[in-house]
């Protein structure tokens, strides 16, 4: 008896040990990739931001917080920062509310719902470079079809991307067009998860239409609203604070123009690094953006959670 219990516990131990070893073996390559591709470079970004580095990474000089001081006197950086805030101020509410509106409409209908959902989602999966060029053509002042269409309803041709005042909202509109479908899908999932009984109970209590929406739908959508706002602002895939590809391609001949009116922080970082070869300064710029993104995401999480709590 005693020996058999002893031996079984030894077998149990080795089995556990073996399983642990298997786990480490499974994780070895993926973890190596995570550390080498994501974690180590992140730390390096901080390190780069306090060095001066032109062309040859081996010849770096420590400059402390010099780049961060330089930024506050750099009018073009400040303009890019201001533009980025403007893009977010226009693009995030537009994406979220249009997404919510379309989802609510889709929730009203039964036939063709899947088809509409697919149509609204399609731009999200297509290459941003290609659709940016398509829009760039459609919005061109003389050859563009948008001005042709506006002409039919009596609106004079608009300069769109060539005007310092219209360019930024135009870029924002293209971004909203591309990403709104993502929010539609998020809200549709949330709407479908609200139990029918709640509405029925509320109807029995005499609630209807707008008050149903305000008292039931909207509060229950709160988690999706938080998610949607955070994703639109700062997610790695569609976050408007990291806007680059659309800005670069909508105005390839003069990225960020006219007069810097469409420039963004990431575009400016790219230009500092790969046009001016001032890599240390570029790294400092992106570190600042990272700090901003992190702060805003955390703030949004707190504020939006609190406001709709019941």
């Amino acid at each position: 008896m005693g020996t058999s219990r002893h031996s079984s516990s030894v077998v149990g131990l080795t089995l556990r040990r073996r399983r642990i070893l298997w786990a480490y073996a499974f994780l070895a390559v993926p973890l190596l990739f995570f550390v080498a591709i994501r974690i180590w470079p992140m730390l390096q970004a901080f390190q780069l931001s306090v060095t001066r580095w032109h062309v040859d990474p081996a010849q770096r000089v420590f400059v402390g917080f010099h780049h961060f001081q330089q930024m506050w006197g750099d009018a073009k950086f400040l303009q890019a920062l201001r533009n980025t805030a403007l893009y977010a101020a226009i693009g995030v509410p537009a994406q979220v509310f249009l997404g919510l509106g379309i989802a609510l409409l889709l929730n009203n209908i039964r036939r063709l719902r899947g088809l509409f959902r697919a149509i609204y989602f399609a731009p999200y999966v297509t290459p941003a470079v290609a659709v940016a060029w398509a829009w760039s053509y459609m919005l061109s002042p003389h050859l563009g079809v948008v001005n042709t269409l506006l002409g039919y309803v009596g609106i004079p041709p608009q300069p769109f991307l060539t005007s310092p005042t219209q360019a930024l909202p135009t870029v924002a509109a293209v971004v909203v067009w591309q990403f709104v479908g993502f929010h539609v899908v998020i809200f549709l999932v949330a709407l479908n998860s609200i139990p029918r009984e709640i509405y029925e109970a509320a109807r029995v209590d005499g609630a209807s239409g707008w008050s149903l929406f305000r008292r039931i739908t909207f509060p229950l959508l709160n988690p999706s609203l938080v998610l949607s706002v955070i994703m639109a602002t700062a997610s790695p895939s569609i976050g408007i604070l990291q806007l680059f590809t659309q800005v670069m391609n909508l105005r390839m001949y003069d990225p960020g123009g006219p007069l810097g009116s469409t420039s963004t922080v990431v575009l400016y970082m790219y230009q500092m690094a790969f046009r001016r070869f001032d890599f240390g300064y570029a790294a400092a710029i992106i570190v600042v953006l990272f700090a901003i993104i992190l702060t805003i995401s955390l703030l949004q999480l707190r504020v939006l959670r609190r406001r709709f709590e019941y």
Partner: protein
Amino acid sequence: MRRRVSPVQVLSYLVLTAGAVIMIFPFVWMLLTSLKPLPEIYSLSWLPRQPTLQNYVTILFRYQFGRWFLNSLLVGAATTLSMVVFSSLTGYTLTKLDFPGKGFVFVLILATLFVPTEMLVLPWYASSVRYGWVDTYWGIMFPGMIHAFGVFLMRQFFQSLPNDLLDAARVDGLSELGVFWRVALPLMRSPLAALAILAFLGNWNAFIWPLIVTNRSEVFTLPVGLAMFSGEAGAQWNLITAGATLSVFPVLLVFAIFQRHIIESVASSGVKG
């Protein structure tokens, strides 16, 4: 049962249709323009009066769009394979095996979700210069070899897999690798397909990193090639839209076939964070 269509529904259909036209129109316009000879760009024709495939012949044979298309396929295939294998391995290990340091590994991977690609491109570029990866396929693809998004997607699906099933396989004498490869993975066909599609699309559409790490046109991916070509093509919108169509329509085709899959996995990964 009588079919009733309420006024609210009629209005919903009207608004949704108008919106859908705005969503589709750029793709239609892109395709139509790519079939027009250059003079029709300036005469602002609606439908191509003399439809031609000459624009495609030009971009494929006079320019390097064919090469860029193949580069994008190659880079996409390699990174997708890596993403699928390592994401499922990691997702499985984190849900189905116990080991010291599990919490730490989890947090480590989770943390990488919060770091935007844009923050990493400069360190990646520094390494690529140091190791000679600029203008190589490896240079383009190494950042896409793994992503926390894939790990969390797979983890979520593995959580629904009953442990009893895996234990039964262990009792039958399968090694841990056998349990993963022969029992767990085959049950994950549709999540794996979804992950593969999303990973491939992500790479097919990627722009900032391939733009940075390539200078020679032979190694451009399709988006980088399209951007560079279009930047120099002036107002030859017939050629630019042919290039854009070439990069968009394979995606729309894949999307049309797997749209339910794609939308549902994007939704679930988004909702679950």
